[in-house]
């Protein structure tokens, strides 16, 4: 007679990529209670969440639009996490990029797109880096926990945004707390006419590919992964841990800054308070769901973009709150993280 026993041992390699796919149905089971409480049929709700956004080309493109900043914040977080630098500040770095892009956009006047667009991209990246600099230095020089510092700086940049929008940049005509519009020469070009899909999406795909290349094909990537897996082991092998980590933190901030620049230059054309509303935090969810692998991050970002679009569709069709989308997203993260425990177990057949 043989029976099965669960042992604490590393699971086979193929378990890990499966986990997010197991997580999705579990999440939907768990959240159905809420859907029921909101007075809707869960099956119908999930049809609207997952299928209906893809049923026509307009909303399918809208999924890509929603995914654009998520691809970037996800890539930013995943890059840092690969080196064991826990950057929780993508939200703030995104706003820093957006502020810089807005500054460039309202300062330049009648500029050629060949100057304006690169200026927005570089400006957003640099601003994100600068916002990531202080926590990175604190971490490297004084070993101050970056989770706390990057997280707290997120609220600081929101206040800076409010300060600008209620002060120097307040729209002089409408008096709304929003900045004046950016110069047309700094607006990202549309990838598909008469849609909202803009250059930022292409930029995000390029970032994902470059990130994959850096992580898997360069010595810098190998060094940062070594640090992420074992700081002591990397240090012993003569890798300059602090310098590498500092570079990673800055690049991560820069990528998040790009997301902010993209939202200003491609979607809103001015700075608003609610520019992001958690895109940076979603980046953490996406990086985790994607297993910190850039292509995994790409898929996860598209999936979260789908849920975000779907949330609006559910809300319109069934009258449930649009926040249900956030609940599904957060639950998905918790379920995925819990399921990563499966990685530590292995089912073995034992002869009794």
């Amino acid at each position: 007679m043989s029976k099965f026993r669960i042992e604490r041992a590393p699971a086979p390699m193929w378990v890990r990529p499966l986990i997010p796919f197991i997580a999705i149905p579990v999440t939907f089971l768990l959240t159905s209670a809420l859907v029921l409480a909101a007075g809707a049929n869960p099956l119908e709700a999930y049809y609207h969440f997952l299928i209906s956004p893809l049923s026509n080309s307009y909303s399918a493109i809208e999924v890509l639009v929603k995914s654009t900043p998520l691809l970037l914040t996800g890539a930013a977080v995943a890059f840092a996490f690969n080196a064991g630098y826990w950057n929780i500040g993508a939200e703030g770095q995104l706003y820093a990029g957006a502020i810089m892009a807005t500054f460039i956009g309202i300062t330049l006047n009648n500029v050629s797109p060949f100057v304006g667009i690169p200026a927005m991209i570089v400006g957003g990246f640099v601003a994100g880096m600068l916002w990531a600099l202080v926590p990175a230095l604190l971490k490297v020089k004084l070993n101050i926990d970056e989770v706390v510092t990057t997280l707290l700086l997120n609220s600081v940049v929101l206040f800076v945004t409010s300060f600008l929008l209620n002060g120097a940049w307040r729209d002089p005509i409408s008096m709304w707390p929003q900045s004046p519009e950016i110069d047309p020469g700094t607006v990202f070009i549309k990838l598909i006419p008469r849609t909202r899909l803009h250059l930022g999406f292409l930029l995000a795909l390029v970032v994902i590919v470059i990130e994959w290349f850096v992580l898997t094909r360069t010595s810098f990537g190998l060094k940062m992964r070594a640090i992420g897996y074992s700081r002591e082991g990397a240090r012993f092998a003569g890798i300059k841990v602090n310098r590498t980590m500092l570079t990673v933190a800055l690049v991560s901030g820069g990528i998040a800054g790009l997301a902010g620049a993209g939202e200003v230059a491609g979607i809103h054309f001015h700075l608003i308070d609610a520019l992001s509303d958690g895109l940076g935090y979603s980046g953490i969810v996406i990086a985790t769901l994607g297993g910190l692998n850039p292509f995994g991050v790409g898929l996860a970002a598209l999936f979260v973009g789908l849920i975000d679009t779907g949330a609006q569709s559910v809300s319109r069709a069934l009258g449930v709150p649009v926040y249900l989308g956030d609940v599904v997203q957060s639950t998905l993260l918790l379920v995925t993280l819990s399921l990563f425990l499966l990685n530590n177990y292995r089912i073995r057949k034992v002869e009794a």
Partner: protein
Amino acid sequence: MHIVQMRGIVKRFGDLIANDHVDFELESGEIHALLGENGAGKTTLMRILYGLYHADEGNILVNDQPVAIHTPKDAIAAGIGMVTQHFTLVPTLTVAENLALGEKGSLTLDIKQVERSVAEASKRFGIPVKPDVLVRHLSVGERQRVEILKALYRNAQVLILDEPTAVLVPQEVDVLFEALKRLQYSGLSVIFISHKLHEVMDLCNRITVLRDGKAVGTVHKNDTSTKQLATMMVGRESFGVTRQEQRVQGEVLVTIKNMCAEDKKGLPALRNINLEVHAGEILGIAGVSGNGQAELSAILCGMQKPSSGQIMVEGQDLTGAEADVICATGIGRIPEDRHANLVGELSVAENLVLDHLQDYVKNGILERNKIQQQAGKLIKDFQIKAKPRDRLRTLSGGNMQKVMLARTLSREPRVVIVSQPTRGLDVGATDYVRSQLLEQRKRGAAVLMISEDLDEIIALSDRIAVIYEGEIVGIIPNSEATPEKLGLMMSGSNIEKRKQEKKRVQV
């Protein structure tokens, strides 16, 4: 009468056998030492007795009755208490509150009443503690007293102490020993885990020595000596590796001058170390574990900074150099802890080139074919049982050590720093590693080898330096070295004798 009997205890962690059919008997009212090197299986055995681990085989009898101990709760019910190396007190609670934790009872807690009974117990057992003081205001020694009182308060008949003196200063050790002897007269049985010989001889009635997970033997204090104990602890069967006597005496490659260092707790770990290593020799550092070897190795590998002194390697001042600097000089380093100093989640191939990546990179891009080829070559040359793409953590300890050796020695370093090269390895791997080290000596490298295995030291070293409590207490050539002589030096007997003479003079 035996209060505790452990019979045929086997405990495996994966491939490692931590306890290999260990028999252990504790007589009522004795203080019994469990002596052995780090990793000999002492703590594992006692964790099994206290219900923190489960034995794979074997059984436990308390007062001649078989008992099933699944959790510490069962152990406490059987009258067994344990003070672990890491205290389990809540610093923000008072002493009395800590003792009340885990007690069964009603929902309400009359803390005044608990304080009274703690004060009463403190008096009865002769262990002075103040019940109403917050634990975080107590010194380490006082916390240990609280831990002991906690065990006694729960009616422990058997008290297990895991390396209790490791955290204490000498005066506190004296106080502890007095208290333990007093408790012994009132009928308590004590199991004292230690690797310090003179403490064991001071305190204990009987001594059981563990080595490589096996019980080597149990002796009465009156029938033994520190010398015999040292030999029992560290001896291991010799293998087929032989060192050729003749060699070329080369120039001095490594000079360590007046080096001092502190351990993680800030206590002195190394005192005035002076060493020279010549080209073409193996200098062995012998000693019982915990006498400063870990710090010496960490400093020479660039993972820790000395507090004073100087390190010169081939004319270059490397005092306090970081690991990346040491690595760039090409010094070969094979550390004690392979798990911490390799990267388990990376592949074997990646680990094999990680410390000299610059040779496998063109314009910042990894030359992946070259890395795979190099890995294939090293795997063949060093007989590593793995494929280049395997994750390192899936390898056995012996194969991990071979990866470390391959990475280090394939670069033909002029200076090799190696610590516990064969700990935890099987016979075959041990032989292989030792022959590789002799190969380095033949090649003309200066090898500094730290080892707690006496046979290894004698088999490989040209000269042997003995370290005791952070000091080099003597350096002798291999021709003068015998296990007995080294054992005596390692037990610090020269020094202890000197100290006692000093005391006598002062009296």
